[in-house]
């Protein structure tokens, strides 16, 4: 099985293997942060902004009402509350949602070196889309 995988890997384009390597490390880092921070939150090592018992009475509300009841903000302003266990977990989630970014950027020089400008442009456009989504410009406010 391993031999087949190695043979298959040998036949894949170098940029595909480069993307896989970056994605692998990014995902590991994101999942590690997610699990570690949730453990700290669940065990009470990091005190939550919304206590567990109260959270159970609020999670059936629409998001706008939930935010009004808890005083939590939209966009990147959650960073101001990052010392709290529940909000700190968003760090792991953001890492997971961003781990394609370095992998995409790592492809750009590889494509440019081979003269594949269209694919380099597609990678940069995808990075721009992800950054636009992450910026909160499109989604902040109700």
């Amino acid at each position, binding site marked *: 099985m391993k031999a087949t995988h190695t043979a298959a890997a040998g036949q894949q384009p170098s940029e595909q293997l480069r993307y896989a390597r970056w994605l692998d490390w990014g995902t590991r880092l994101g999942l590690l942060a997610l699990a570690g921070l949730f453990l700290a939150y669940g065990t009470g090592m990091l005190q939550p902004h919304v206590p567990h018992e109260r959270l159970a009475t609020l999670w059936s509300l629409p998001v706008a009402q939930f935010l009004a009841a808890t005083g939590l903000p939209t966009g990147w302003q959650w960073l101001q509350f990052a010392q709290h266990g529940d909000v700190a977990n968003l760090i*792991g989630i953001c890492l997971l949602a961003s781990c394609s970014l370095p992998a995409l950027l790592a*492809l750009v020089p590889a494509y440019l070196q081979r003269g594949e400008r269209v694919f380099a442009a597609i990678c940069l456009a995808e990075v721009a889309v992800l950054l636009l989504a992450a910026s909160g410009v499109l*989604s902040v406010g109700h």
Partner: protein
Amino acid sequence: MLATLRHRCLVAVVCLLVLAPAHAADVLLTANHLPWWFWPLALFVTSFLIGIVAVPAGIGGGTLFVPIVAGFFPFHLDFVRGAGLLVALASALAAGPMLLRGGLSSLRLTLPLALLASISSIFGAMLGLTLPPAAIQLTLGLMVLGIVALMLVSKKSEFPQAKRPDRWSDALAIHGVFVDGASGSTDHWRSHHTRLGLLLFAGIGLLGGMFGIGAGWANVPALNLLMGAPLKVSAGTSGLVLSLVDSSAAWVYVNKGAVLPMIAVPSVVGMMLGAKIGARLLNVLKATLIRKMVISVLLFAGVRALLKGLGVWV
């Protein structure tokens, strides 16, 4: 004889695994005196069980997760969709590197499709968070029933032949080499109908962002039957497309405050652990039977969402 009996017992157990979480959650929904930790724990168990059956059924866990959790757990649909996107994202990211190295995912096929789907998924997510919950439940119900119909009628082609790659496919050099680990055969594949594929993926991205549901159920037929990629490459590439599309949509949910770690993290961990077991069971279980059971559960969850949206069964 003994082997048949053992197989039937295994199938019965899996059947119970699929149906139990939905039934248990429905019964317990009325019991509001439960401690706070009950629901995250129930969510972890449910996600774990969904993870087990999703792999042999050949669908993404997110497709089962959103209708079941939205239908039978007390969480608001906004948070369920946020968690659903993260479940689909984490699963796609975890599998991505291995699929790329093994040639089961094609980066060249992924990048153009994911770009359009990512853009439309952002608009889908924004739209989903703007529409009233009843409308979303109703549309979700209709969509899940549509998925059931698609699963019932769709055909698959192990090695479709793209006889003449179109201009776009030629210009972007969308082709690859796939070494089948099971048969050891090597397939040099190429794609066609690229423009129509791009258009379809824009629509799929919109739905994925709106409902927080993984879109493997739509990606795979589009890649396999329309664009001519081998079945296993289609499944692998679908995962890689999801890893980019769901990242874009997930940011919208995070920025809107619609991601609750207490809901999202147990779901992600449960689903990933379950999927590992599901992958091991792939050779033991009869995939067609599992698929039929999953269709039954989806049918149930779809009708539930539809009735919830209509205010008949809230």
